[in-house]
């Protein structure tokens, strides 16, 4: 129950910045509109590109905008706090706590993600529905979509935490963080759906953890994954989540052993 309490407080902390949230919703929506017109231009000429029809593509555009902050494709979230605390030495306090370090920060990040889902996830989706003819999920599809988004946050947290942990060695993980954001932008399918990637490139990007960010949840929403496809998608996300969290745990143990806090 401790972790739930941590998550609830993270949710509340983020909910204090109302204007920033509204500003973000506005910007996500502007981008949603722009991207819809470019996708419409593509799918008007090539109506079955990547196995999507134009309605799928427009839905993809809005859901991707809705997931940016929830999944943390541009970085940020609890892991930025961790990196900061490692740099200043405050991390010593976190390591002394009689709770799991990873559990504590994962709970914080999930609380943040829940807030972003309720605001910056829901609002652009509603606006998208008002402006364009989007595809709705079945009730079961919607429920599975939410599970998939939860797993997407865990995968993203694992990647972001790995980079934050590198602060123990680099002192400033800013550059590495930018590399991670760059990889996220290219490989999550934020600017162009991964289904459009040609041949072996498609196979490759679908195997990397970033496919868990947008492509897998959206395919569940659109009904392109059903039955065994859903199970495979969720299993893929769960697998990457577990592997990445294990890597984080391993790296943290190394860090604890060799790092002297306050002084390098």
């Amino acid at each position, binding site marked *: 129950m401790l972790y739930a309490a941590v998550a609830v407080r993270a949710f509340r902390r983020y909910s204090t*910045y109302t*204007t*920033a949230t509204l*500003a*973000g919703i*506005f*910007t996500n929506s*502007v*981008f949603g509109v*722009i*991207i819809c*017109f*470019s996708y*419409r*231009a*593509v799918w008007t*000429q*090539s109506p079955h*590109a*990547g196995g999507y029809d134009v309605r799928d593509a427009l839905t993809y555009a809005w859901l991707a905008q809705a997931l940016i902050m929830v999944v943390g494709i541009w970085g940020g979230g609890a892991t930025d706090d961790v990196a900061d605390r490692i740099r200043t030495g405050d991390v010593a306090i976190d390591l002394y706590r009689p709770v799991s370090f990873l559990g504590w920060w994962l709970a914080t990040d999930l609380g943040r993600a829940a807030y972003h889902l309720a605001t910056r996830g829901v609002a652009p989706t509603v606006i998208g529905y008002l402006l364009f003819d989007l595809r709705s999920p079945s009730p079961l599809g919607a429920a599975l979509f939410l599970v998939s988004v939860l797993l997407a946050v865990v995968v993203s947290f694992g990647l972001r935490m790995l980079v934050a942990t590198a602060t123990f060695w*680099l*002192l*400033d*993980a*800013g*550059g*590495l963080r*930018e*590399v991670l*954001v*760059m990889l996220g*932008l*290219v490989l999550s399918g934020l*600017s*162009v759906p991964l289904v*459009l*990637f*040609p041949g072996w490139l498609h196979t490759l990007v679908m195997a990397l953890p970033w496919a868990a960010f947008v492509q897998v949840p959206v395919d569940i929403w659109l009904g392109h994954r059903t039955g065994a496809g859903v199970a495979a998608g969720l299993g893929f996300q769960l697998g990457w989540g577990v592997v990445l969290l294990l890597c984080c745990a391993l790296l943290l143990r190394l860090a604890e052993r060799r790092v002297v806090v306050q002084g390098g």
Partner: protein
Amino acid sequence: MASGLREAVRAFLLLAGMWVRVSMTYRASFAFSTFANLVTAGVDFGAIVVMFQHVHALGGFRLGEIAFLYGGTAMGIGLADLAVGNIDRLGTRVRMGTVDAMMVRPVSVFVQACADQFALRRLGRVVQGGAVLAWSLTVVHVPWTPGRVLMVPVLVVCGALIFTSLFVLGGAFQFVTSEGSEVANAFTYGGNTLTQYPLTIYPAQAVKLLTFLVPVAFVNWYPALYVLDRPDPFGLPTALQFASPVAALVLCTLAALGWRAGVRRYRSTGS
């Protein structure tokens, strides 16, 4: 006036140089971030290339012509971002109350806000945009005239000035609400994304808005119609194709007025 401008440029270069030295402190981090920025700058063009695996033209424009539009707007926002992009950090400074410190220094607040955390890695966008623009010039079939050749640098300069104005207006807005930096992104980066494509993919009413209300169409669309020797698909006057400098001048004036109003409105933090 002239000496004031020289003083401002000198102050900007001093501050920018200081931030470059700061960023070099952590060597590994600097190397990673330079690499990341170079690749990130190319992501949008990569997306367009992926789309062209499935189509031969977008909005009636072939890849080479879209590369021209893309390169123009990328260089415009890249140069603007390099010079004044960090003005969007102003909201954080307003919230922290550190604008007070800027105001008592003997350097203009505007110059300090622009040079704040200056990052050389932002050259990545300019370099990448320039490369795409140069490539596009080799593949488009255009009867080159001195006027068309001259229009290319005019396009880049006007684009940079228009985006600079939008950044500054966004910065000024943060005196009104310190959490509003994302709204500015919708106009700057949103304007950039929007103008990467030919405006023929948008509804005709939207194009009027982008001409007369938020004039990002002057960043590359109108000059490109002239350079690429295309009639205006929306049947708007040909004069617009030469009006980018006018649009840039009007926006710069508005930005200057907006910034002054913002600075006057500033009250220190104290919640």
